[in-house]
């Protein structure tokens, strides 16, 4: 039986052999650049809340109010998960947009569950439908409103992007609020106009750069390009969190201004650097 030292020695030898039989695929500089980019991405990944954003992107902070209006009017709310889907999509970018719409669906579903508003989720993809059902379950479970779950439903609108647009344009229901989040391409105008025609308020979110004008023209609140992915990190249940970030940002701005003004005074010879740091007469 080998001793622990021998075991460690064998492992080190094995790793050495593997490394000896390997070669770098790229130049050393390229490899270091790739690893550096990954480190920056890891830093972004590890920070789930974007620190600097205080604006209400896409009007998502108003979802609670929209649900209150819907509850009062006795109508429902609609969330469309875009038209790329998960299983039916031919590109990863479209699938990723559908996945990024699920946290938004969860946010809206929790607000709807608390207000007792039925939610209609539109999708043209069976896998996205299953994921949406799970998101609705989780929202009602978290808000302890499982008895209201049966009033919400997932609507499978049919295959193709045009089918989804056709359904929203011809439906007679008039929801108090509608959120369309996910990939919207050539059918975007039809889809959003169909939702906008009946809904009291519409938020459109898509990362398709060429559809940015459509989102601006048709929706009251628009999440354009990277904002769709950013919104997930900026969803806040409590408005106080936003206020705290805003206050902290202002303090930082004042601090930066003080440093700039002080530096200018030091460079102009009005005061010494020590006086700036310690206060006049502080030495």
């Amino acid at each position, binding site marked *: 039986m080998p001793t622990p030292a021998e075991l460690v020695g064998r492992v080190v030898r094995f790793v050495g052999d593997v490394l000896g039989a390997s070669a770098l695929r790229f130049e050393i500089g390229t490899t270091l650049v790739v690893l550096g980019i990954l480190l920056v991405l890891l830093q972004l990944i590890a920070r*789930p809340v974007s620190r600097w954003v205080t604006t209400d992107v896409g009007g998502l902070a108003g979802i609670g109010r929209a649900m209150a209006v819907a509850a009062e009017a006795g109508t429902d709310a609609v969330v469309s998960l875009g038209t790329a889907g998960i*299983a039916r999509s031919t590109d990863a970018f479209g699938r*990723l947009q559908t996945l990024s719409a699920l946290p938004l669906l969860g946010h809206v579903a929790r607000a709807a569950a608390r207000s007792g508003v039925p939610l209609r989720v539109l999708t043209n993809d069976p896998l996205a439908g299953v994921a949406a059902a799970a998101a609705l379950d989780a929202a009602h479970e978290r808000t302890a409103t499982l008895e209201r779950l049966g009033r919400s439903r997932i609507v499978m609108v049919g295959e193709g992007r045009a089918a989804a647009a056709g359904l929203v344009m011809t439906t007679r229901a008039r929801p108090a609020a509608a959120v369309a989040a996910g990939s919207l391409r050539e059918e975007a105008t039809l889809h959003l106009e169909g939702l906008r025609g009946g809904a009291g308020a519409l938020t459109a979110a898509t990362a398709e750069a060429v559809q940015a004008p459509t989102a601006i023209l048709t929706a009251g609140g628009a999440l354009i390009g990277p904002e769709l992915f950013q919104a*997930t990190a900026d*969803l806040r249940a409590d408005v106080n969190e936003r206020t705290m970030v805003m206050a902290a940002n202002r303090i930082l701005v004042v601090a930066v201004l003080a440093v700039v003004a002080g530096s200018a005074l030091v460079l102009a010879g009005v005061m010494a650097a020590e006086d700036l740091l310690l206060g006049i007469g502080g030495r």
Partner: protein
Amino acid sequence: MRRPTIPALVIVVGVLLLADLLVVNDSLGELAGVVIDAAILVAAGAALAAVASLALRRSGDLWRRRGDPIGAVLVLAGMAAVLVAGLRPGADGASDPAVQWLVSALLVPLGATLFGLLFVTTLGAARRSLELRSREATLLVAAALVVLVLLLPVSGAVGAWLAGGAQWLLEVPIGAVFRGVLLGVAILASVFAARTLLGIGAADD
């Protein structure tokens, strides 16, 4: 509390594929190939399971007389039609003429009819946005009008100047904004994908 198994699996697979990208090693390459094949199989299985789930759900709706019965019948009939056309004995699957007919004679004309409405709905959206006095929409419509004027089919020196202006607009300001949006989308899509795989939830979770 989240289970650490999935993030751990994701990290192991991610490091393996990254190592395969950066390092040339036969064993590593074979292992990465096995992982990629497994991912493809899992995705295909998930898609099949989802379709089966949809059929079961719609059948259940019909059986229990709940929801939209016409929609349920149409979904089930559509699935059955395509399955029969593509899987009957002697059929060529997705490239079978019967499947192709279903697509080209039903789906494509329906889609084309809807897309014929794009021009009208775009104008309607622009008009309503202007009525609401939205700043972004006003700017957008103004820019669209400028581009429209620049693209007018005018001949002579004026036409050449207009065409040059349109080309400059496309290449410099519009191109710059477009590239910026695409870069931002690429970075945040990568970040979001990693967060999803590692189980890092939304800020309000």
